[in-house]
């Protein structure tokens, strides 16, 4: 499954959601993306990995969509483990992703070294 925009690409394959490029669309633009996340969660995979290592930029509406539409939503499925694979190459990830800890219990954040 795929969803893409002018400067970003979101792909789901083998329980891995990979987001790459730059995501700085307007708040209403995230409705589609949140629906895309819900559709994946509804398939009830035992484990889900969000790979944002190649996501260079995400605006505040995107942070909100990721937190509510994916992380908090994944908690609705019992025993679903969520992994986030991120990179210290991107400053926003280094500064913001660690604050996702504590949003849900079954969340594991893994930083790829620069």
């Amino acid at each position, binding site marked *: 499954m795929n969803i893409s925009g002018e400067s970003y690409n979101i792909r789901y394959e083998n329980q891995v959601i990979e987001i790459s490029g730059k995501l700085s669309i307007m708040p209403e633009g995230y409705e589609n993306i949140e629906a895309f996340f819900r559709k994946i969660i509804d398939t009830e995979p035992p484990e889900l990995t969000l790979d944002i290592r190649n996501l260079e930029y995400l605006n*505040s509406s995107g*942070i909100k969509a990721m937190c509510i539409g994916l992380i*908090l939503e994944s908690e609705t499925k019992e025993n679903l483990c969520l992994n986030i694979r991120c990179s210290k190459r991107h400053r926003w990830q280094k*500064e913001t992703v660690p604050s996702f800890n504590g949003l849900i219990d079954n969340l594991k954040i893994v930083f790829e070294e620069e």
Partner: protein
Amino acid sequence: MSNENKEKDKMKRRIAGLEKTLQIVTGYSGRVEKNLRQLFEVVSETMPVPMMISLKTGAILFSNTNAQKIFGYSDEDFHKINASVLYENPQDRNIFIRTLEDQGEVRDFAVSMKKADGTIFPASLFSRQIVFEGQNCLLTVTHDLSELRQEEEKRLLLERQLRQTQKMEAIGTMASGIAHDFNNILTIIFGRLELTMMMLPEDSKAARYIADALSAANRAKIIIMQILAFCRKKEEERRPFRISSIVAEAAKMIQSLTPSNIEIRLRIKSKASIILCDPTQIHQIMMNLCFNANHALRDRGGVIEILLEEVTVSSQEKIMIPTLKPGAYVRLTVSDNGPGMNKGVIDRVFDPFFTTKPAGEGTGMGLAIVHGIVQAHGGAVSLESEPGKGAAFHCYFPMIAEAETSTFVKPEKTIPGGSERILFVDDEKDISDTCSQILKTLGYSTTARVRSLEAFALFKENPGHFDLVITDETMPEMSGREMASEMLKIRPDIPIIIITGRETDDKILSETGIRAVIRKPFGRREIGSAVRDVLDNTPGKRK
């Protein structure tokens, strides 16, 4: 746990999650806002143009350092004033606002802006509507066009000068051609008048009339020389000259161009002083200085004094004019009793393109040229002036020792003659006839020819027959120079004199073996002296 409790717990966790998300997003937004503000500050401070953010009402909310520098207001002052005071005509801001509202943005809005000290400068405004600190604002960038205008003015000035130079070159070429024809005519007039004079008793009425005609012809000769001096295209060339005669000649010309309410007073205290100079450039100095003095006096009238004197510059004076070495100088002073100059003008008066004259009346190059010429002559220029006390420009030229001018020959009272055989060639029959007559009156045996090929054939037939060849330079079939070259191949010791009505480089002629050049128009004395001089300096001459 009951289902109800489970639902409650789930809701609590959801609320906690949302609260945490809010914190995350707020924190993130704060960081982004901070970064954007930093970016704005860096951009606004780095851009090399004034930038301001104002409300439509005119309140200024932000100004970058360049705006503060160009307009002369501090950041605090900007907050106190209305943007309309930055316009020379405050109404222009209304037009600017209307344009912005109509078009959504303003590009290249040409307007005169005003600085805090009242200085007006041409500007071009670029503006867009933005939201700044929650308010609808205008971001305006001011492009100061002063330098651009100055550069444009300089470019136009250079173009004008180039056109003037080209025009002068064209006039020079034309004048040179006219002068050549006039010189030929005058040579005939001089020759015929002098021959006639010889036939008349010295105290006769007719002799006086002829003397007057000769005097008028002389004035015509001077006028042609002056036209050539101003128009000729010639490499800078310096030779020993008696500066007094150049100054007197230039003063006479300036006098004729000066309005009657301005009196020119010429005082030459050093008639014999010799300097190494290009006379055309001395003329130019005189013209430029007197033109400025004329301009200073044109409304009120007054006196322009031209003074030429010898001065000795001591080490004390050297301090006042640092570029001047101690020694003997000729000082040319052009002074006027006009309004004078203030210190600000004096400091810049020799700067290229600086002028106090209204647009279109001065190039600002006159005094820069004077400065450049005097310096190139190894001298210096100084200026004395005060408001209300007139102005005096002093040009110092290094004087050369008399010994260096030993090549100057004092005019003799009697015209030297001889009995040698001369071949005279000129394609103008009248000149040929007149000159051979003159040479005959001086005792020479003269053969005249009007065709160069014929003259050359005559020479080739018996090269030893003639003691001297005098030939015109510009002739059909074979030029004087070509004929001279061929004659010298046959007989390398034959002395040859070239006569010409054009500007000729004497050095090139001497390299070709030509002994002397006589410039038309010439009289009996000039040709007689030159012939005798060349013959006397020829090895194995016979008299």
